Each structure stands twice: as structure tokens, then as C-alpha cells.
């Protein structure tokens, strides 16, 4: 298993008000598996994604990334885990506007420790894999939404992470482009044998998922 969590709770405190967002959530993602995490707004799916993505720490419970317990790591160590083992795709793409397509991918590789010619060559290969070779020197502002999301996928694949976590990757795309992006996701996850967790409202995601996990009111549904 590349991602696993067990009996996760997460409570946010705002002043004297405590809000329980996750209440004993458990799930896992295997290598090469595509898992869709579905649930209504406020169900806790993005919070669970952030905990599995080592961005948030759980209030209680265990999280394992590549079978290593990361539940009690500090912020710096969690950053190292993200750098080493995880890739992210965001709803808003979150590309660096001052960097070209190739540079966006190369920068992620740089952060993960790959520099110089090797990073440039790898960035080119990743951009080619998402079929954007001809747009390699374009800035994000000159790309369509679908193209931006493909760059984000290429960036998430940088340095071959064990798992990729995607937060509503098709929310800002029209239906046709969203379908193409999901197809690409599926293909790359299989080809590269990566675990893929997609948090979504989009029913199309079911079509590419090996498994669908439902969450409601912070509890994973059977």
C-alpha cells in the first residue's frame, strides 16, 4: 500500500468552537490503483486528502506513506515526505505564472533534488508524456484550462512519486476536456504504476477509478 490511514479524526478549533471534520476515517490506496474519494461538500474529503498528503496532521489515528508511519512527524519532516513520495494536482492548477511549461515541471524536479541536464531532460519527457511538447516554452497564461491541468499532472509525476493526490482535477474544466484529462491520469498512473487518489464530485471519475470510496460527515461509508 502506498497510502493508508486508520481511524483518523480531525478536529478544528475556532475560538471555543470545536468542529469534528473526520471521525474515525480509514482507507488505503495500493500501488497502481486509482481510487476516487467522493462525498458531498463539507464531508471531510479534502481534509482527508490533506492528511494523506502530509499537509495536515490528524488529531488522532495513523497515517502511513509507503508503509512508514508519518502521523507524528513535524512540519519539516512532512515536507520531506511530500518531496520524496507524493505528487499533487490542484483544482486551481497552481502553476507558477512566471515559469514556462517546461520550467514548471523542471522546478518541481529541482525541489525534489534533480538538477541540471538530467532535470531538463526529465522535464521534457514529462511534458511529452502529457502531449504538450509544442507548448513547452509557453507561459501558463497562454494555455487553456485543460493544458494547464496537463502541466500540473506532469509536475505531479516529477521524480516518480509513489502516489499522486488530486483535488477536484476536473472542476475547472469543461466536460470534454475533463474527460481527456482523466484519461491521461488513468494512463499515466497505470503506465508508471503509481497510486492515484482523486477527490471529486465529478461522476466521470468513477469511469476511470478502480475503486470508489464514499465519505459522509467525516465517516467513510462501507
Amino acid at each position, binding site marked *: 500500500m502506498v497510502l493508508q490511514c486508520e481511524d483518523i479524526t480531525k478536529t478544528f478549533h475556532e475560538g471555543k468552537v470545536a468542529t469534528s471534520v473526520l471521525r474515525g476515517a480509514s482507507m488505503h490506496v495500493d500501488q497502481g490503483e486509482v481510487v476516487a474519494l467522493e462525498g458531498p461538500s463539507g464531508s471531510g474529503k479534502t481534509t482527508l486528502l490533506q492528511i494523506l498528503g502530509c499537509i495536515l496532521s490528524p488529531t488522532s489515528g495513523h497515517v502511513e506513506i509507503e508503509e512508514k508511519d508519518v502521523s507524528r512527524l513535524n512540519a519539516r519532516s512532512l515536507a520531506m515526505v511530500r518531496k520524496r513520495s507524493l505528487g499533487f494536482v490542484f483544482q486551481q492548477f*497552481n502553476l507558477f505564472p512566471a515559469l514556462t511549461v517546461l520550467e514548471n515541471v523542471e522546478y518541481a524536479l529541482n525541489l525534489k533534488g534533480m*538538477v541540471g541536464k538530467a532535470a531538463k531532460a526529465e522535464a521534457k519527457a514529462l511534458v511529452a508524456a502529457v502531449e504538450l511538447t509544442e507548448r513547452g516554452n509557453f507561459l501558463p497564461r497562454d494555455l487553456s484550462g485543460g493544458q494547464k491541468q496537463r502541466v500540473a499532472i506532469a509536475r505531479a509525476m516529477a521524480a516518480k512519486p509513489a502516489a499522486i493526490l488530486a483535488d477536484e482535477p476536473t472542476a475547472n474544466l469543461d466536460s470534454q476536456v475533463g474527460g481527456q484529462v482523466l484519461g491521461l491520469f488513468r494512463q499515466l498512473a497505470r503506465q508508471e504504476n503509481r497510486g492515484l487518489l482523486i477527490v471529486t464530485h465529478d461522476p466521470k471519475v468513477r469511469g476511470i477509478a478502480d475503486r470508489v470510496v464514499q465519505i459522509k460527515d467525516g465517516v467513510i461509508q462501507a
Partner: protein
Amino acid sequence: MVDLGLKTLLHDKTKFAITVAGVAFAVTLVLAQVGLFNGLLDNSDLTIRKCSADLWITSHNTANVDFPQRFSETIVDRVRTVPGVSQADNLLFSYVNVALPNGASENAVVYALKDFKAWNLPWEIKDGQIEDLRRGRFLFLDEGARRRFGDFKTGDFREIQETRLRIVGQTRQAQSFTTNPISFMDYDLLQSLQPEFLGGKTSYILVRLASGTDVGTVRAEIQRRLPYQDVFTRDEWAKKSRDYWVVNTGIGMNAYLTVFLGCLVGLVVVGQTLYTSTMEHIKEFGTVKAIGGTNRDIYAILARQATVAAAVGFACGLAMALGLKPLAERIYLKLIMPVPFILLVGAGTVLMCLAAAMLSFRKVANIDPGLVFRS
């Protein structure tokens, strides 16, 4: 390695231009103000440095070369008898009134000696023979006097202390801190122009030592024989004259204040711009953190941006300050910017910009990478 800091900085060219302009303005302010101050200070001891005297004898507690007190001119005879003294002469310094052709009058500084050549005064002659000063009611006037006196040429007459004197030569680069035009005339002539003040008096005694003589020994002996005068080496007297302006007037404080204000302006402009830029790019920094970057990676980005802004701003500021130099020279002002000083300002600029970037560090340290999941 992709230079995210530099690319982001240059991405918004208007903001980058504003940052650079702020730094450049601060650098120009510091370089020009301190350069002008250095130029004025250079004038304050210029005569002392150019004159070939080894020792200067002044009346007791004379503050600087521009404000001498008079003492008996016969004291020079006692100096000449001190072992190790090869030559000693009286030097008169006085302010005289010059009537201008337009009816106005101005002050001028006069250095008067019997033998100018012996003391390398004046040190740069534009035209004329300095020996001519002994031959009549003549004077040499520095070309810088045009700023105050209007145009003149060698051969013209000027009324000085109600006496018509002929300009028989011109000098260059003879300037004083007080900005009064400098002239040179014969010792006896100057005494005759102001007999009630200068009759039988001198302002300084210039001393040249015999070769191989120990300066300290001769100086101590002169001081022993002249308890009511002060004896300075050339360097000491130059320093005392310079320090007077720096310490005893507000000019030094003014220069330091300008440097401080220049730094403050730069700090505020760069700090504000970088902080605004950080806030505008906060989601990008969140992305950096989300994909595995640490605070250190983001500090490096901010430091890189600050350093580039500093380098470009400093280059522009230096170019502007150097551009001011010839303009200042046209009005007989000197902008002196020694290379070590320029390097110091350069290093200070980088430090200033890094300090400004640190204002953003705290904000960046608290960025929650989870913000990238919010729409």
C-alpha cells in the same frame, strides 16, 4: 536549476522597475550626498596637503586653516634658529573685500607669501608667472572664482580693499570649504591692504625640515620654544581642519542623517515592494511548500529577489551618481566617491535589501500549504 525568484521578480516588470527605482534613488542619494561631503572635506585641507611644508605653526587653539588667529611675524626668526629646520616662512591668510564690476562686493580668501615657489603654492597654475606677484599690485585668482565674481581674464583689474589690483595669472583647483574664491598675492601687499589687522602679523609659519631630521624631535623643540603657538605635522593639521567641519558643525551630522535617510527610503521601498509581492504570490509559495519545498527554499527565493533588486538598483544608482559628477564640476563642486566607498555602499545596498526581504520571512514561515486546496 530554475530560478523561480528571478523569473517571478522579472515577470511583473512595472513592480520590478518601482523596486529598482527605490533602490537606485536611495543609492544615488547616499553616493551624491557623501560624495559632495567628501568633496567639501577635500577642499577643507586641500591647501595643507598641497603645500610642501613639513610643519605648520599656528596660534594657540586655531580651529582650522580657514579661521586663523594672527600672531607676531617675528616669531619666524626664532623658528629658523631651531636645529633641523631648513626653511621657515610666514604665511598670511585673510579675507578681503572684492568690488565687482556690477557694483556688488564679495569676499575672497588670500594666501600671501614672499616666496610661493618654495612652498608649492599655488599648486596648479593655469596661466601667468607666480614670480610676478613680487613686482607690483598684482594677484592670482583661481578660475573657480567665476562662479561668484563673474567672468574675468588675466590682465583685468579688480578693486580689492579699495585698491586696484591687476590679475596677472589664474590658478586651478584652489578651493576652500567655505567656498570663498581663493587668490594669491605678495605678503607685503596683503599687509598693506589691511595694515590695521595684518601689520607686523602672520597667520601661520611654514616649516621645512632638513633632510634626515626627525620630525618629532624638531617639532618638540619648536613647541618648547613657542609655548603660545601650536605646532602640527602636515597630516595632523589636515586632520584637525577636516575634523572641525565634521565634528564642530552640523555638516557631518547632516551627511550621516542623509545616509541614514537614504538607507531608510531604500529599506521602506524594497521592504514594502517585496512584502506586497510576497502577499500577491502567497499561493505560489503555498504551492512550493505543498510540493515539498521548505521555508528555506522560499527564503532563498526572497533573498534572490532582494539581491537582484539590490544589484540592479545599485548599478542604476551608481550610474546616476556618476552622471551627476560632470554636472557638479560645472559649478565647481566636487563629487568624490572612492572605490572602497562605492563598494561599501554596494555591500550596504545588498544588506539593506536582504533586511527588507526579512520583513516577509515571518509571513512566509507561517504559510499553510493547505491554502492551495482552497478555491
